[in-house]
C-alpha cells in the first residue's frame, strides 16, 4: 500500500485567504494511500522543507504531494527537498492550488472544493509515480552567437575570454549592428564609433572568436549541450586572404545602389564595404545589383584590383557545426510608416526617421555630418522632433513604450544646436522618460543649455507646403494649439524586432510574443534565458532597451552560457518515453510523429514455442527524447509510455479530477 504524505502550504495568505486549509487537510487524510496530511505557513521556506524531510523519514513516506504554487515555480525545490530526505525526487507531485485556485476564485467554498479535487488528482498521479534516474550526456564546449551588434560582440568576447570557442554570425558584411550607425551616444555624448570599434577589433582578433559575417543561420536542431546548426556563409565574391582593403574596387564600380547602412540617404556601389571602420574590412559584391552577375558585362572591380582578390566563381558555403549554447542577439528594426499617413513620411524628403537623423549628423554619413536638409542641402532653422511615433499607440502602432526615444531625441536636440547654433529644436512629447544614470541631468542640459523647446502634446498632422513643413501640434500645458513652420521633421519611431524574427524564433524553438519580441523564461527572475534550455537572449531582440542595458544583458547571457559550457556533462530530464516491447507491434506510428527523430526501429529475436522469431519494435534514444508525449498519444496499443505522464497516471488523474 502506498504511504503518501500531503503537505498543504498557506503561502502566507495567498492560499489560506480563499482556501479553507483545515477542510483540505481533513479531506486529504481520507484520500487513498495518504498516511499523513500537514500544513505550513510557507512550505518552500527552510522550516517548511525541514518539516517535509522530517515527515518523510518519520512516516516512512514513499510518495509526496505538495499543495502549493505552480510546479513551474517550486517543483525543482521540492524535488531537491525529497532527494535530501533520501526519496527519489521524481516521486513528488505538486497540486497548483494558488495560481489555478486561490488567486483566481473569490468564493471560498468553491475554491476549497476545487483545491481538494486538485490534491486528489495529484495524489492519484503520485500513487503511480515511478522513481526515475536522470541520464548524463556530453556537452559540446562551443558557443554560437547570432547577431553581430554590440550585444553579440560583448557576449562573444565574454565567452571567448572564459576560454571557449565562439562563432559570431552576422547577416550583413560587417559586425557593428545598429550602434555603428549612431553618431553620439547618450548620456555622455561619447562618439559611438570610438567606443564600438575597439570592441569590434578585439572580437576580430580574439583567438577564440570565429567571425562569420555575411552569413545566416539556416537550420537549428538538437537540444541543450548538443545543438546542430547549419550556417550559410554567403559568397562575398572577394578572396579574404588576398584583399588588402585598399578600396580601389568600390571606387571604380559603376553601379550605384541605395546604402542600407545610410538608411537610403546615400549611395553605395555594387561592391562595397558598409562603413569605413567595417570589420572585417573586406568588400562584398551585392549580386542582385552587380552588372556582372545580372548581364555578364563590366567586371571593372576584377580588373582594377591590385591583389586580384575579386573572384566571381565563389559560391555559398554551408557550415554544419555542433554547439553547447546559443546566444540570440539579433537587434531591432524601426516600425513601418505607411500606417501613420498623418506624418507624411515618404511624401517629403525633409520628413526623416531618427535613424536617418543619426546618419545625417554622423561625420561618415551622407553630407559628411553637416546635417543639411535632404531637399535643398540648406542648414535647417526650425527642426521638429516628434516622440512616440507608433509607440504607446494601441490603435495602429505598438502599445509599448520604446524606452530610448526620449533620451536620443534630447541628444539630437543637443547635436542640432552644436552643428547649427542658430537652429531651434521643438520637441513634441507626452512624457519625457529619463530613468537612468545621468539621464535626467542630460535632458535638463538639452532644455537649459541648448534651449530646446519641449511642447507637451503629440503632432496632429504634418502638411508639406513648398519647401517648408507646416506642423500642427498642441501644447496641452498652456492649452494652445501650435503650428510650426519647420525645415526638418524627425520622427522618433517605435522599436520592433527584426522583420524575420518570427521565423528565427520558430527555427530555434523559442517563443515570441504578440509583437515578435523573443520571450524570456521569466520577466523578472530569468530575463536572459529563453524557455528552451541552452538558448539565451541579449539586447533589443527581447524588448526595447538602451546600450548600457544591452551590454549588461550580453554579459549576463554570456555568464549563463559559460556556466553551461563549464559542465563536462549535463543531466537530461528523465521524463522520456519508454517502450513495452511485449505490446509493441513495430508499426512505428511513434517514429513518424517524433519531432526530435529520437525513435528508431530495432529488430528483436525471441523464442516462441521453441522457435526463434524475429520482429521489429520501436526503440527510444533517451538522450534525444524531450518528453513531449506525441508518441504515446499516437501509439494505439499503449506500448509507448511517457514516464512521468504515463497513460496510467493521466487516466488516474482524469478519474480523480472528475470525482
Amino acid at each position: 500500500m502506498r504511504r503518501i504524505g500531503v503537505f498543504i502550504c498557506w503561502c502566507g495568505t495567498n492560499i489560506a485567504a480563499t482556501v479553507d486549509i483545515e477542510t483540505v487537510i481533513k479531506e486529504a487524510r481520507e484520500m487513498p494511500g495518504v498516511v499523513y496530511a500537514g500544513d505550513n505557513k510557507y512550505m518552500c521556506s527552510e522550516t517548511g522543507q525541514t518539516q517535509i524531510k522530517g515527515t518523510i523519514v518519520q512516516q516512512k513516506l514513499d510518495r509526496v504531494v505538495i499543495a502549493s504554487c505552480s510546479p513551474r515555480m517550486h517543483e525543482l525545490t521540492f524535488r531537491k527537498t525529497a532527494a535530501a530526505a533520501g526519496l527519489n525526487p521524481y516521486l513528488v507531485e505538486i497540486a497548483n492550488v494558488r495560481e489555478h485556485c486561490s488567486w483566481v476564485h473569490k468564493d471560498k467554498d468553491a475554491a476549497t472544493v476545487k483545491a481538494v479535487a486538485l490534491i486528489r488528482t495529484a495524489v492519484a498521479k503520485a500513487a503511480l509515480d515511478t522513481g526515475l534516474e536522470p541520464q548524463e550526456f556530453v556537452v559540446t564546449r562551443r558557443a554560437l552567437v547570432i547577431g553581430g551588434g554590440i550585444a553579440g560582440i560583448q557576449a562573444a568576447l565574454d565567452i571567448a575570454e572564459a576560454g571557449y570557442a565562439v562563432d559570431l554570425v552576422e547577416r550583413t558584411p560587417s559586425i557593428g549592428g545598429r550602434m555603428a550607425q549612431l553618431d553620439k551616444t547618450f548620456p555622455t555624448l561619447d562618439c559611438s564609433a570610438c567606443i564600438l570599434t575597439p570592441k569590434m577589433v578585439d572580437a576580430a582578433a580574439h583567438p577564440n572568436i570565429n567571425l562569420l559575417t555575411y552569413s545566416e543561420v539556416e537550420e537549428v536542431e538538437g537540444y541543450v549541450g548538443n545543438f546542430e546548426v547549419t550556417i550559410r556563409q554567403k559568397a562575398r565574391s572577394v578572396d579574404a586572404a588576398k584583399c588588402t582593403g585598399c578600396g580601389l574596387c568600390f571606387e571604380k564600380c559603376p553601379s550605384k545602389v541605395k546604402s542600407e547602412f545610410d538608411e537610403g540617404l546615400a549611395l553605395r556601389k555594387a561592391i562595397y564595404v558598409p562603413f569605413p571602420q567595417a570589420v572585417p574590412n573586406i568588400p562584398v559584391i551585392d549580386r542582385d545589383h552587380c552588372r556582372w552577375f545580372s548581364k555578364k558585362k563590366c567586371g571593372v572591380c576584377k580588373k582594377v584590383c591590385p591583389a586580384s582578390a575579386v573572384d566571381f566563381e565563389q559560391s555559398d558555403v554551408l557550415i554544419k557545426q555542433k554547439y553547447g549554447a546559443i546566444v540570440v542577439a539579433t537587434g531591432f528594426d524601426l516600425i513601418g510608416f505607411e500606417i501613420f499617413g498623418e506624418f507624411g513620411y515618404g511624401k517629403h524628403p525633409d520628413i526623416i526617421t531618427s535613424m536617418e537623423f543619426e546618419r545625417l549628423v554622423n561625420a561618415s554619413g551622407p553630407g559628411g555630418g553637416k546635417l543639411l536638409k535632404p531637399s535643398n542641402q540648406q542648414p535647417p532653422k526650425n527642426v521638429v522632433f516628434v516622440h512616440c511615433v507608433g509607440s504607446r499607440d494601441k490603435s495602429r502602432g505598438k502599445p509599448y513604450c520604446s524606452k530610448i526615444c526620449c533620451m536620443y531625441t534630447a541628444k539630437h536636440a543637443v547635436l542640432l544646436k552644436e552643428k547649427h547654433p542658430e537652429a531651434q529644436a521643438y520637441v513634441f512629447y507626452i512624457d519625457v522618460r529619463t530613468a537612468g544614470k545621468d539621464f535626467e541631468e542630460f535632458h535638463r542640459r538639452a532644455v537649459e543649455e541648448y534651449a530646446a523647446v519641449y511642447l507637451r502634446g503629440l503632432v496632429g498632422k504634418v502638411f508639406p507646403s513648398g519647401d517648408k513643413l507646416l506642423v500642427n501640434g498642441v501644447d496641452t500645458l498652456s492649452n494652445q494649439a501650435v503650428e510650426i513652420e519647420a525645415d526638418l521633421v524627425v520622427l522618433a519611431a517605435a522599436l520592433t524586432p527584426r522583420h524575420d524574427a518570427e521565423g528565427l524564433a520558430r527555427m530555434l524553438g523559442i517563443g515570441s510574443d504578440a509583437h515578435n519580441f523573443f520571450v524570456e523564461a521569466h520577466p523578472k527572475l530569468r530575463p536572459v534565458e529563453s524557455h528552451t534550455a541552452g538558448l539565451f537572449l541579449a539586447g533589443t531582440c527581447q524588448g526595447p532597451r538602451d546600450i548600457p542595458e544591452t551590454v549588461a544583458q550580453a554579459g549576463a547571457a554570456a555568464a549563463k552560457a559559460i556556466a553551461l559550457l563549464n559542465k563536462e556533462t549535463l543531466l537530461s530530464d528523465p521524463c522520456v518515453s519508454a517502450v513495452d516491447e511485449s505490446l509493441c507491434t513495430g508499426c512505428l506510428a511513434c517514429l513518424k510523429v517524433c519531432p526530435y527523430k529520437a525513435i528508431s526501429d530495432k529488430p528483436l529475436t525471441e523464442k516462441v514455442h521453441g522457435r526463434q522469431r524475429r520482429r521489429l519494435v520501436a526503440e527510444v534514444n533517451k538522450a534525444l527524447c524531450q518528453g513531449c508525449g506525441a508518441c504515446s498519444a499516437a501509439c494505439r496499443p499503449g506500448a509507448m509510455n511517457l514516464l512521468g505522464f504515463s497513460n496510467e497516471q493521466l487516466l488516474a488523474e482524469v478519474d480523480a479530477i472528475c470525482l
Partner: protein
Amino acid sequence: MQELAEISGEKINDCYQCGKCTAACPVNPFMDILPHQVLRLLQLGQVEQVLQSKTIWVCATCFTCAGRCPRDVDLSVVMEALRAILLRQRGGSRLKGEDMPCLIRKGMPEQGIVSGFRKYTK
C-alpha cells in the same frame, strides 16, 4: 457620467492626454476648452463644466480626432453624446424654427440645413 458612457459607448479612461486630438482639430482656435481638456474634465467627472462650454457646439464632427487617437477613443462620438444629453434632457435647442429664414441663404444645399438641424435641435 454613467449616462454619457451609455450613449457614447466610449471608454473615457483610456485617454492618456497626448493632445493629438487637439492638434488635429481644425476648429480648435474657436473652442473655449480644447478637445483633450474635454476628455480630461470628463475623466475627473466635471461634466457640468463641459456641458456649459462652447466647444461641443463648435465641433464639426469631421472624425479627424477619432482617426488619429492612439488610444482608440472616438471623441466625435463623445461630443455627440454631450450634445444629446443637452438636447434631450435640457431642451436647449440651439436653433429655433423662427430664426431660420434669415439664416438660410440662397443656394444653401439641403444637406447643410438638414445636418445643421439634426445637430442643433431636439
